[in-house]
Every structure is written in C-alpha cells, then in structure tokens.
C-alpha cells in the first residue's frame, strides 16, 4: 500500500475509534514516546507552544481517557469526524509527515448537532513492522474559541 493510502486508512480508523466511543483504543494510535496537542492557528502562527490538551507520552493520553471516564463531569456527547485527503509533506523509509484537514460535528445528549471544530492535523508518523503510529499529532483548529468545553479528543 502506498503512503497516501496507508495514512488514509490510519486516519479513518482513528476517527472511527473516537466517534464510536472506543476511547480506550485511542492511545494505541500513538507511539509510546509521542506528542499530542490541540491548539489553534493563531498560537501556531505566533509560535506559542501551549495546547488545551498537551501530552508528551502515550501514558498521558491513557490518563486523559481515564479522567474522562472516571473523574470529569460533562454532558453526554459524541463526535462525527469528517477527514479530508491527507497531503504527504515528507516521506522517508521509517517516517511520514502529513497534513490532514478535519471537520468535527458535536452531537449532544439533547439531540442537537453543531459544527464543533475545523482544522488540520499536522502529523509525523513512525513506521514499525509495516504499521504506522503517530510520533506527533498537533490538531490545529481554525477557530480560536472552543464552545463550552472540550472533553473528547480531536
């Protein structure tokens, strides 16, 4: 399978995992020693490093899932990710860099659906034994504002 198709397949599985509430499987898309961050275009443009979610290990992503399940209080909600075609910006033997646009609708327990986020994943994949894992995923949102709260990951 070529790089583009492999990234597409990876992203489809990633989105499905979050959208079907299989959050426990979400960290497995990342390498042990990974970077995951949710930010927006203005912070990126100015080089400001903070994120509303900021992880530098897969264990931190697992902790976030545990917190969402056991500790944090938020109204029942789910997402629908719609991912665009990736642009492969760099491809080497063990690594791929790609950018993939996303749109995420949020569906609340009340039945209301709204556009929650749009943006692009800025990714670095590591390939091991033919499988891709995220060494880094930065979800760069187009909007600087988050409505109410962000519980589920992007």
């Amino acid at each position, binding site marked *: 399978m070529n790089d583009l198709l492999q990234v597409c397949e990876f992203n489809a599985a990633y989105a499905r995992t979050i959208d079907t509430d299989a959050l426990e499987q979400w960290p497995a898309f990342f390498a042990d020693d990974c970077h995951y961050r949710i930010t927006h275009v203005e912070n990126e443009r100015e080089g400001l490093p903070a994120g509303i979610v900021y992880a530098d290990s897969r264990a931190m992503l697992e902790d976030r899932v545990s*917190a969402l399940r056991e500790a944090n209080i938020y109204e029942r909600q789910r997402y629908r990710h719609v991912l665009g075609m990736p642009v492969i910006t760099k491809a080497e033997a063990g690594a791929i860099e790609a950018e993939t646009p996303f749109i995420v609708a949020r569906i609340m327990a009340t039945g209301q659906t709204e556009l929650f986020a749009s943006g692009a994943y800025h990714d670095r994949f590591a390939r091991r034994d033919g499988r891709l894992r995220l060494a880094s995923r930065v979800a760069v949102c187009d909007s600087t504002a988050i409505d*109410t*709260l962000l519980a589920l990951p992007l």
Partner: protein
Amino acid sequence: MNTVTAQPASQPVKWHDRSLTRVPYSAYTDPALYAHEQQRLFQGPSWNYLCLEAELTDAGSYRSTFIGETPVVVVRDADGEIYGFENRCAHRGALIVLDKCGHAESFQCVYHAWSYNRQGDLTGVAFEQGVQGQGGMPKSFCKEEHGPRKLRIASFCGLVFGSFDDDVPTIEEYLGEEICERIERVLHKPVQVIGRFTQALPNNWKLYVENVKDSYHASLLHLFFTTFELNRLSQKGGVIVDASGGNHVSYSMIDPQAEKDASYKDQGLRSDTDRYRLKDPTLLQGFKEYDDGVTLQILSVFPGFVLQQIQNCLAVRQVLPKGTDRTELNWTYLGYADDTPEQRQVRLKQSNLIGPAGFISMEDGAVGGFVQRGIAGAAGQSAVLEMGGDSAESSEGRATEASVRGFWKAYRKQMGTQIDLRGDAL
C-alpha cells in the same frame, strides 16, 4: 418580604433588601439589567483588565479588546506610555481597528479614511477641504471636538487595566493592599505569553465570575484530584475578600505539621486505594517556586479579571459579556521570561489542568450553562448563598460562599441597589 427595585424604576429585577444571601435568577436573564450593567458597571468606576504589558512590547504595539461589550484599542506610543480608546470611528461609528493585535504608526478607519494617532486623537478627515472646491467639511468643524472616548489606563505588575470613568480610584486603591500583595506574589518578575485560548460559555457572565469566587464547589464538582488521589489532606486554605467585596483570593497551602502526621497515616492506606493512579505522574511533577508553600491561588478583580496559580501553572483570564446568556472567557497562559526549558515544559504539562479541556476546569465551562438552562421560567425565584453564613468577609477554610456574596456586595453598590444590613431606610 421588603424588596428594593433597581434603578431605573422600570427595572424588573427584585433584590432582597437586607441580605446578600439571595440572588434573583432574573439577574442572569433580564435584558434591561444587562444593558444597565454596561453603563453603570463596565463604563462606570471600575477597572477592566485589557491585556499584559508584555503584549505591548514596543512603540506602536496594539491590541483590540473589550470593556464589557464596548470595543476598545490599547496601544503603546513612542513616549513609552500605554493609551486606550474606544474602537469606534468618530464619524459613523465603524470599528477603527479590525485585527486582534498588530503594530501601527497611526490608525485609519477603512470606511471614509478618518485617521487617528496612537493616543486616539482624530488627526485627519479625508477630503476635509472638499475636492476641487466642492464639498468638504464646514469651516466650523473642529477635529479636537471629535474622537472616540478615551480610557484611563493603569498598569499594575504588568497587568493593563482601563476605565471609562474619570473618577475611578487609583488601581492600588481599587485593588486594596492584600490583593496587591497577592498579585505581586505571582507577577514579581517579567512574564511571557505561552498560549491564548477562548472558551465560549453558554451563560451570563456573572455566573462564571461567581464560579471563580466559589471555593465551596471546588472539591465537589472537580473530581480529578480526588479520583486520582492527588489531594493532600495536609492542605489548609482560606479565602480573602477585600473591603469592597469585589476582589478576592482563595488559596490552599501545605500545612507542614499536618503533612508530617498524614504521611504516617498514608502508610497503611496505600494498599487498598491503588485503583486509579496516573500512568504518567509527570503531569503534575513541578518545582517549588514560591517560598510561602501556597500551591493554589485564585485571585479575582471586579468585575471580570482572574489571575491563577495552580502549582506551576500560571494564567490570566478575562471575562467578557456577550449577551445575557453568552460569555467569552479569554485565557492567556503564562510562563516567566527567565524559565529554563525544563520549567517551561512543566508549565506546558500542568496546563492540562486548565482551559477549555482542563482536568480541573472543564466543568466550570459547563456548570454556568446548567444554571442558565435550569433557571428558565424561574424569574421570580432566587439562588441561595448561605454557606459560611451571610457575611462577605475573609475566612479560614474554603466551605464558604463569602467571596460570592462579596461579588454581590460590590455589584449592588455599583448598580445602585445597595443592601441595608442595619435595616435603616435607604
């Protein structure tokens, strides 16, 4: 029950006349009260947080923001001083500045090219003399008599505040000594912005400000620390409410004696409570940077400013009303300019605690909306604020709503619906 009616007389919000322990729900929904707040409170004798001095680094640096709903511009001029003025062209009222921030020699409205210097003076009117003898402004038109309203600007520890009122007390007087000390404690050296995020809250602005001041809810709503057993029994805390009621600090700190006792008890408890533990405890691994042992300090300045220190995680928050049931919460995450790379990384990791997705703050984004939705149709009913009594004074411990009552004390004074605790005629 005797009630007093807010001015003007048509105001439908009925306030309890003798006590701060009741808040009419209509205070969060009434459009007339909301409009009245803009005028009496945000444009009245209050200091409104605008930005950081660190964001206006050199001559011409500007930011556009809001006081209440009113758009304003804050800019540093060549004399090094910071100036502020309404972001409204004196001609037709269009916005003068469209960008959130930038660098400008001067400002020009895009509509008819009226121009302004960095201090907000009207300096140019396009075709003022007409074109080829036709048109133009009348000879009597005097540019000095026109211009956006100017702000009084005050800076304290690098925080820039603005006021529309010429008679507002000095910023130091407005904050009071204790609040000044607590701001100085955190902002004792230059800071750097490390990120900005906006959270759109589905509720009246006052519900968020009350939440910030409400030390009672912290351990009940926010279960992150409890679930992962990160609470320290050996913490003690308190609430400081200033004389006006409007400014507050809630804090917790390590109690060294209790720490010693608790560590003994911990030995026996560990075995049966290892169900939930962080897999990556480096999330909260910090470093000691304040000698006083204070691990959490939440400070608010009336009407809508918050300075936060949660362990090594520093931020300021600006609360902006956007309608009776919409609020914009602007988070600015901070580090110190002299942070080592390791210290900066600690702050970035601890920032998972705060903001729109924060382990201990995401709930605050939602509860205001729960109230706003819950009180629909209950305009005649009131919220109850009796935890810790009926006063609005500093106290030990955090099971109190003293600083929430303090907010209403300051609010009602500024809105002209003062309470009369002695029962005298108003």
